[in-house]
């Protein structure tokens, strides 16, 4: 059984290495989000009207409470909500994406899609998310 398991583990290694080579330039291998793409609550607040806050949490969380003026943009309703963001976006604006906490994933994913799919620049992920904003409220 152990020998079989080792053979399977080795078989899976081949496509994994191939894929990792293919993705090599597109992946940050040392940190999940480069420091240059993170922003703290204080920094984002200092941007004032130049910042567009984007709430990447589910609709129910956004409806309950959100950063004042924040626009909802989550992956569940991406195609529906993206046009709303684009109407207020301009090249000089900085986009600050947040989700519920430090450990959530949605803000990073929404930020990635804004860069890769919507081709927007100046997209930042809020360090600590909604919880960090609440602490600094």
């Amino acid at each position, binding site marked *: *059984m*152990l*020998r*079989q*398991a*080792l*053979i*399977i*583990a080795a*078989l*899976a*290694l081949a*496509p*994994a*290495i191939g*894929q*990792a080579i293919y*993705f090599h330039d*597109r*992946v*940050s*291998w*040392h*940190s*999940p989000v480069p420091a240059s793409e993170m922003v703290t609550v204080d920094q984002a607040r200092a941007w004032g009207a130049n910042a567009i806050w984007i709430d990447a949490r*589910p609709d129910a969380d956004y409806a309950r409470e959100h950063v004042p003026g924040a626009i909802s943009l989550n*992956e*569940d309703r991406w195609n529906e909500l993206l046009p709303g963001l684009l109407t207020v976006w301009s090249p000089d604006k900085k986009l600050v994406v947040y989700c*519920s*906490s430090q*450990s*959530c*994933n*949605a803000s*990073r*994913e929404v930020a*990635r899609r804004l860069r890769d799919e919507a081709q927007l620049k100046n997209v930042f992920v809020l360090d600590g998310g909604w919880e960090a904003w609440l602490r600094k409220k």
Partner: protein
Amino acid sequence: MTSAPSNIKPQTSNVALRIVDLFVGGVFIYAGAIKAHDPLRFAYDVDNYKILPWAVSVRLAFYLPWLEIVCGIALIFRFLYRGGLSILIALSLIFIGATVAAKARGLDITCGCFGHVSQHWSFPLHLAIDLAIFVPLAALLLIELFPKPAR
């Protein structure tokens, strides 16, 4: 003529086991394929558990989906069958342990088990699905290791 009815039961149970093999194998191939399609998203999901450093999480994110796919194929074709079962059982136990640990630490996790579909799964649903996958795997391995003696 009289021996025919006694053969029906073992054949039926073999068919049932094959169906379970196909189902569980298919689930892991599906889950692996979704994650292999977007390894970066899966890397974030692994990182969310805050158990491993990012450098390890991102490498696992490239490897685990393919491991699931190869194990799923092993179950379906009964090729390296025991090895595939034992790896999937180990993975399921790790997923269950990591999910419980994340919940205990109050983390807002996305399990990433089935890509975007599983993004908003609650903790009980995570656990229920992990267990629903683990139980048939454990049963298949037990039956494989300790088959009923033929009468």
